[in-house]
């Protein structure tokens, strides 16, 4: 298959700060590609360069086969962009915002109304199309902007943190819309996110980006495999004693946090018995395959902060969270 996007040593500096540092990769036509990284990693800057909104300091990229430096007009014709921050006009209704967008993209006047109708029903906003956007909820607004990004039927669609600030239910709806787009219309989708779960649920391939550099690029399954084992979490009643655990060869990594110990274990199904023997008395044990959170930790050496509540959550909440994830 052809490449929808090719980046070659793409770099952007803002003064002394290198926001994006010599990134190179290819995105295949029709895939859902994820850029995963914490705030300030350089995701928005990367997309903005692809969309010709920001000029690269050095390097080059081709979007839909067109150079982002020399063929900006052709690039802009082939893309759609859903921005991280709200970008619709508050004083207009949902439908008026879409009409405006269709005119900006030169959609055929005879097709405008039917196209607007069809994107409105795709994102379930038909009932609210006459309501002014200032009276929309955050989720409705996001859906409207997704609809807008699709209206002119771009071959390549950029979604910058499409579910930021949405409640979990709306977020899952959004994922369905996005997946449907990719499967039904064959649109190439590049999505940025700092939600692990989102990257994993949505993307065919993921690039982990941190400090403007791509740390790794692979399928979610391969990334998880590369962590080197399963995650076993032990909860002790008192202070954990890990001296014996550390001697076991199949334990790749041992981390202590309060009364819980987190182990990265090669083939945990076989070795769980030995681990429990070495650990002595434990209150709870949890064994699971690695999540994207573990993947991120593995490649960047730090945890991605998903949201306030999780970062501040205690050990038990974390275990429950792991459990929730392991069911998927």
């Amino acid at each position: 298959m052809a490449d929808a996007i090719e980046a070659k040593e793409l770099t952007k500096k803002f003064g002394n700060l290198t926001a994006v540092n010599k990134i190179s990769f290819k995105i295949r036509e029709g895939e859902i590609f994820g850029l995963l990284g914490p705030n300030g990693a350089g995701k928005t800057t990367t997309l903005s360069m692809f969309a010709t909104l920001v000029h690269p300091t050095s390097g080059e990229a081709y979007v839909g086969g067109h150079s982002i430096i020399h063929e900006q007009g052709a690039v802009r014709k082939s893309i759609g962009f859903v921005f991280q921050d709200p970008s619709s006009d508050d004083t207009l209704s949902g439908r008026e915002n879409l009409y405006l967008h269709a005119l900006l993209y030169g959609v055929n006047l005879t097709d405008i109304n039917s196209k607007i109708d069809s994107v409105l029903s795709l994102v379930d906003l038909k009932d609210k199309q006459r309501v002014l956007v200032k009276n929309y909820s955050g989720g409705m607004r996001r859906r409207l902007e997704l609809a807008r990004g699709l209206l002119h039927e771009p071959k390549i669609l950029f979604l910058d943190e499409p579910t930021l600030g949405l409640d979990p239910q709306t977020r899952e709806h959004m994922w369905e819309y996005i997946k449907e787009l990719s499967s039904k219309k064959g649109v190439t989708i590049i999505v940025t996110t700092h939600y692990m779960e989102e990257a994993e649920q949505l993307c065919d391939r993921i690039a982990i980006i941190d400090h403007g550099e791509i740390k790794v690029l692979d399928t979610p399954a391969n990334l998880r495999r590369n962590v080197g084992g399963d995650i076993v979490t032990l909860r002790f009643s008192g202070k954990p004693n890990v001296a014996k655990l550390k001697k076991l060869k199949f334990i790749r990594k041992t981390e202590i946090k309060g009364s819980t110990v987190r182990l990265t274990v090669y083939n945990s199904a076989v070795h769980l018995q030995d681990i429990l023997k070495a650990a002595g008395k434990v209150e709870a044990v949890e064994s699971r395959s690695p999540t994207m959170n573990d993947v991120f930790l593995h490649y960047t050496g730090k945890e991605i902060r998903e949201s306030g509540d999780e970062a501040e959550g205690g050990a038990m909440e974390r275990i429950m969270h792991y459990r929730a994830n392991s069911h998927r």
Partner: protein
Amino acid sequence: MSEASGIYALWYREFKVFTRERSRVVSSLITPLMWLVIFGTGLGSILNGAAVGGDYQTFIYPGIIAMTVLFSSLFFGVYIVWDKKIDFLKEVLVAPISRTSIFFGKVLGGTTDGMIQVVILMVLGTFFGIHYTILSFMATLVFAFILIIGIVSIGLTIGSYMSSPEGFSLIGGFVIFPLFFLSGALFPLKSLPAWLYTFVSINPVTYAVDGLRGIIIGIHQFSIMYDLSIILLFAFIMIVIGTYSFKRMKL
């Protein structure tokens, strides 16, 4: 084709917003009415009518039209700053239309706002004893149109370089007050001291006011064609500068 529909899109948006925010229109008309009624009557009561060639209130009426246009058209430029603050400007800039078209769409939007205000002021003028013929009515619209295009372009130029509304107000204030006070909107040009006349004569708004006054009440310093040529040149230069600024505009 797509450039034309892009220009229409931007005009459509400004027009919709304008019709939704009627309070903006009403408040923009209160100030000129206060000038006419209070300032015009107050200063008129101590002035010898002969000094201005007639009733003072009537004398400043064309100047007040110019003033209204000046303020509302220049400050129309602040909306581009708001568009930057929400990401609406990105949505426009990522669309496949040229910066030139974006600029013209905005100019048309601002000009429509301004022309609606001018028409309202012209109708209100009949209550202050102003009489229009069809010819003077049309000629007033033409003069106002050209002036508005020039001033909207200045506002948009300032807006394209600014990232905060406060910054815009500051720079806008620096530009607007000299343009207004040095235009002869409030006083006749005949008897000015040389130093002041120099400043007044290099101000393009002077010629707009002079032309409007000539058309509406028949008092003018220069020939109407001379006035017209100068403001046409002024509007043209401002459009060129505005287009250039939009091409350079960063997010």
